[in-house]
């Protein structure tokens, strides 16, 4: 029973960290319509920044500055935000596909740096000894898991409330206006590129924060944690939950992570150890097919808003009044 509670807390902690990434993606894609297929790169930037700032000094690589965890998290958000802003500034004046391709490239380069810049990132072996917020409680796993869950929930809740507030604020309304009808919004004097860069940067900062949380929760990071499969998982979470809705982003993350962890447990029971790597790839196939099916059948997900229908309605009303006059 105690084990079950402990596992439940562990599961929820991971799911909520995913929710945080999904919330960041929802700001970029759901609210602003910016397509980020390299989000694993931004998550990695956050994890590595925080790890560098907070780990004890290590002669084998740069730093280990031994700073407090909170500083690490703020540093992670800053680094992620700057990286996203630079990506946005370079590509947001161009077609939306170019942003997609560039973010894809960012993820490739971050992966390359994580693997090869040993002085900075520890190379393929990653960085260990990342301080945990409740490290002294590690003796009693249940208490440790619960306190981790508490802190991750608090951060996720804070991000959720802040994003809900932002969505309703004038700033959020400008983003929606730009997504729905760029020309109309520009004619009202809003700089499309400036607002989009802001949204992209804030989204990147949230993803980086999630990466930092994850790093301090597991205490160890390596380049393998940030492969394109991570990007893919988060996209499925957002699409299942319904893009445009923060509540959907969180619900989708928990649901998809439950399916993922459940099917993972199932394959480990059903298949022999030699066959497990193959079974794991089948798991990805299933999720990939699921993404395509949702896009085809129910593109708005569980909680998604439907923006284009409203626009269509407005247009028909406008033509009706025109013909009437």
């Amino acid at each position, binding site marked *: 029973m105690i084990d079950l509670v402990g596992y439940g807390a562990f599961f929820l902690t991971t799911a909520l960290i995913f929710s945080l990434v999904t919330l960041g993606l929802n700001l970029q894609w759901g609210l602003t*319509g910016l*397509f980020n*297929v390299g989000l694993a790169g931004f998550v990695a930037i956050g994890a590595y920044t925080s790890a560098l700032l907070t780990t004890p000094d290590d002669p084998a690589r740069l730093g280990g500055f031994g700073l407090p965890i909170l500083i690490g998290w703020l540093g992670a958000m800053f680094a992620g935000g700057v990286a996203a802003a630079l990506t946005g500034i*370079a*590509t947001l004046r*161009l*077609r*939306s*596909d*170019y942003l*997609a*391709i*560039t973010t*894809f*490239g*960012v993820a*490739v*380069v971050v992966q*390359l740096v994580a*693997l*090869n810049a040993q002085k900075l990132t520890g190379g393929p072996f990653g960085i260990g000894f990342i301080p945990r917020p409740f490290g002294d409680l590690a003796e009693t796993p249940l208490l440790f898991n619960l306190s981790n869950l508490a802190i991750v929930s608090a951060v996720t809740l804070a991000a959720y409330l802040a994003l809900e507030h932002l969505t309703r604020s004038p700033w959020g309304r400008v983003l929606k206006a730009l997504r729905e009808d760029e020309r109309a919004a520009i004619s009202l004097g809003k700089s499309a590129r400036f607002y989009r860069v802001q949204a992209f940067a804030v989204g990147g900062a949230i993803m980086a924060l999630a990466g930092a949380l994850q790093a301090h929760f597991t205490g160890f990071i390596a380049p393998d944690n940030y492969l*394109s*499969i991570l990007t*893919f998982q988060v*996209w*499925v979470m957002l*699409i299942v939950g319904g893009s445009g809705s923060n509540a959907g982003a969180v619900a989708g993350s928990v649901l998809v992570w439950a399916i993922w962890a459940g099917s993972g447990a199932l394959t480990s029971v059903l298949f022999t150890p030699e066959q497990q*790597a*193959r079974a794991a*790839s*089948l*798991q*990805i*196939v299933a*999720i*990939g*097919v699921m*993404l*395509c099916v949702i*896009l*085809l059948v129910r*593109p708005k997900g569980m909680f998604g808003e439907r923006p*284009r229908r409203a626009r269509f309605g407005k247009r028909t009303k406008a033509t009706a009044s025109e013909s009437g006059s």
Partner: protein
Amino acid sequence: MSLQFIIDGLLTGSMIGLGAIGVTLTYSILRFSNFAHGDFMAWGTYATLAVVGTISAMFGKVAPITPFSFGWPLIVALVVGVGLTALLALLLDKVLFSRLRKQEQAIIVVMGSFGASMALRSLLEFIFTSRPTYFSRAIQIAMPVGFGIRITPDQIALLLLTAVLVLGVHLLTTRTQTGRSMQAMSQNPALARIAGIDVASVVRVTWVIGAALACVAGVMIGVLVQIRPLMGFDMLLPMFAAAILGGIGSIPGAVLGGLIIGLAEAGAVQLIGAEWRAAVSFIILMAVLIVRPIGLFGVRER
């Protein structure tokens, strides 16, 4: 620095360029960047490998054609593989892309291609495992051609094949009615439809050309390097960079872009080290997007 990097660069560039033709055609005619294009490459290569296996099961071991490392089975298998890859692309279009296109939000199609790419790649890992394989394990002796450059017979054959294919596709798109229809579609789809162009057939031809060239590029990688499920995915960034560098929609541009990136990669491998190879296409991509987003031969979009 040894001049060998020119041959290496031209070969890598040919592979990138052949793939980039497909990327640029899909982008200009179907109007989305296809993240599953790299996986057409991998699927084509594994299909060819499977056909080679079937042939050698039926006819026993076939001696390679001297001086090459491969015999007629690979040539036959390549033709079959090209057909199978084209079928895969057409099937995927029917099941997924054509339906997503109807939603009229280009980025949804991109997302669908991203999901399809993940599924296709993992399916390959499931069927063939992620262990690398080879068409032939024979070692070829490279012939010196002067200036410190060496080249194997396989490499010469594949460079010639690339040149013939590029010329063929160029003639097809500039000198035939089909090619003119494709150009019309890329310039103004609505007008093309009104002018009576068979849109469905243009879409089919686009997929077939893209998939066929992807398969050839994949087999080239298989002959010269190795065959892995991730081989196509790793080519994705260089292919996109080449297509954008050359200018979206331009076939000579895609090939030239591929050669430039291939040469730059080979040069970087000599100067900096092989581990940073993948960063080269990113740097070129960013430079193009900042300095000249329409690329070398691109036309400004209206």
